[in-house]
């Protein structure tokens, strides 16, 4: 690993944490604005120091472990949640190539051939954090929350996987960098895969445990769900992991369906390549932030699904739709190939 990569990963780490921290602030502001309020405005101008205040509060709180809890797993839970949340950012292409001091860097930690599968794998490990944390609390609400989390994650992974299959068939690669390049050449995937996009989006909401699918937390039924017994920074880690996941899924959605760092027509302007890359990165972040906003917008607009509705939607709705999407994509692709000759 070169020094440049290490540096890039460090920057990525800091940026991810900052975005996650400010997502909490944004969440409160968006919620407030959607409800005709103004939200936090006391810590600093417009309350922009609120995440710092929240973080300090989290650290100052008593770190309590229930007597009947399994201490080791209780600590392991939030750690897994946080680690897995931070890992996925590595394979996402945040920008094109940057030439500095005579060397060319890619604004991407690494571009493995199986990038999208890597994201999938890490997300599927992430559920252990919730499950272990919930079970180790020795609390029935926490256990119910983690059981829901597990079944929800496993169910929606299928729908998500099927929507990806169609996308991969179209793009001919599993590498996220390759997918972005394909979109730059052939137009964004959202044009070819509207149904796949909707399936993916719905599954992304379920995978990040965001409303309307926030069954594992579900304040009104399960107290706090899997993090009922957690306090101090352990709770902070769970919440942080949720926001990090939201950031990463927004980035993945932008990458897969909205061209990632690609801006249509930008390369025809004949700008300096470095400038083009930076504009591309800015576009990538703009797309990502839009989806973060979208996540929040939906959370504060729709009521929560009932658990049986959630399962029905996943198994009887999204999975058949996903299969149909794969079939349609395959057929149309093949016909187009035939027609081209």
């Amino acid at each position, binding site marked *: 690993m070169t020094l440049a990569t290490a540096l890039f990963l460090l920057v990525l780490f800091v940026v991810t944490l900052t975005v996650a921290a400010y997502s909490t602030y944004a969440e409160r502001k*968006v919620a407030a*604005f*959607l*409800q*005709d*309020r*103004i939200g936090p*405005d006391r810590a600093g101008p417009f309350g922009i120091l609120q995440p710092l205040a929240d973080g300090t509060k989290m650290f100052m709180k008593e770190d309590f472990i229930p007597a009947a809890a399994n201490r080791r797993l209780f600590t392991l839970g939030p750690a897994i949640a946080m680690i897995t949340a931070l890992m996925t950012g590595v394979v996402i292409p945040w920008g094109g190539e940057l030439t500095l001091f005579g060397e060319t860097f890619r604004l991407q930690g690494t571009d493995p051939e199986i990038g999208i599968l890597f994201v999938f794998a890490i997300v599927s490990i992430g559920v252990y954090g919730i499950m272990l944390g919930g079970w180790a609390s020795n609390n029935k609400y926490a256990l119910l929350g983690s059981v829901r989390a597990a079944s929800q994650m496993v169910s929606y992974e299928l729908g998500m996987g099927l929507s990806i299959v169609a996308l991969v068939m179209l793009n001919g690669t599993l590498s996220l960098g390759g997918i972005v390049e394909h979109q730059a050449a052939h137009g964004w995937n959202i044009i070819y895969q509207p149904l796949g996009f*909707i399936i993916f989006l719905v599954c992304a909401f379920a995978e990040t445990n965001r409303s309307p699918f926030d069954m594992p937390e579900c304040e009104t039924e399960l107290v706090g769900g899997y993090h009922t017994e957690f306090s101090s920074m352990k709770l902070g880690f769970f919440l942080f992991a949720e926001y990090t996941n939201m950031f990463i899924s927004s980035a993945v959605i932008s990458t897969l369906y909205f061209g990632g760092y690609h801006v249509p027509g930008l390369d025809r302007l004949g700008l300096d390549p470095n400038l083009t890359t930076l504009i591309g990165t800015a576009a990538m972040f703009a797309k990502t932030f839009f989806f973060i906003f979208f996540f929040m*917008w*939906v959370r*504060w*607009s*729709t009521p929560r699904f009932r658990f049986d509705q959630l399962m029905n*939607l996943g198994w009887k709705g999204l999975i058949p739709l996903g299969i149909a999407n794969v079939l349609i994509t395959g057929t149309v692709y093949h016909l187009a190939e035939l027609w081209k000759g």
Partner: protein
Amino acid sequence: MSDLRPLTTRSRVVSDKRMTLMERIYLPAMVAGLLITIRHFFRRKPTVRYPEQERPRPAVYRGRHVLKRDEKGRERCTACGLCAVACPAEAISMVADERKPGEEHLYREEKYARIYEIDMLRCIYCGLCEEACPKEAIFLTDRLVKADRERMPFVFGKDELVEPMDPARRIDVSGRQTAAVRTFKQNPRYAHNR
């Protein structure tokens, strides 16, 4: 049942029929919901940022009490205790004392309240004390009671209740001491006005 009219124009009859296809897709309803909330996003916020901004209060607002002095700067209260009797929250307590010679410039009548306390946490700001007072001594004003972290500071003594001697810093109660109130208070039908 049928002669019950709905309370609002927006009420809907809830039906438990099977959802139609459009409803089962959820998305149209969800998009409609999103459009509603986004309209609120750009709406003007009615929030009043309290310590910096204050909502305008009407002249007859019933807030923090004041014990008035008369035009010569003498305390009007004579510790009759009618306010304490009238108080539904039992927030008022007082200890009466006799005026000593040489204190005539301080107290208007021979008897005065040595201690006069209102517990602002018990007070419900109903204004019955003001109504009961025969001497036009106690009034509610449009001032607010400041927040605090402890309970004791909310028990206001005479130092906080009696208005300052300085004529320039007197508390204006004209909002509540209207002409109608004055005539009522001086009505000779009541024993204490005779």
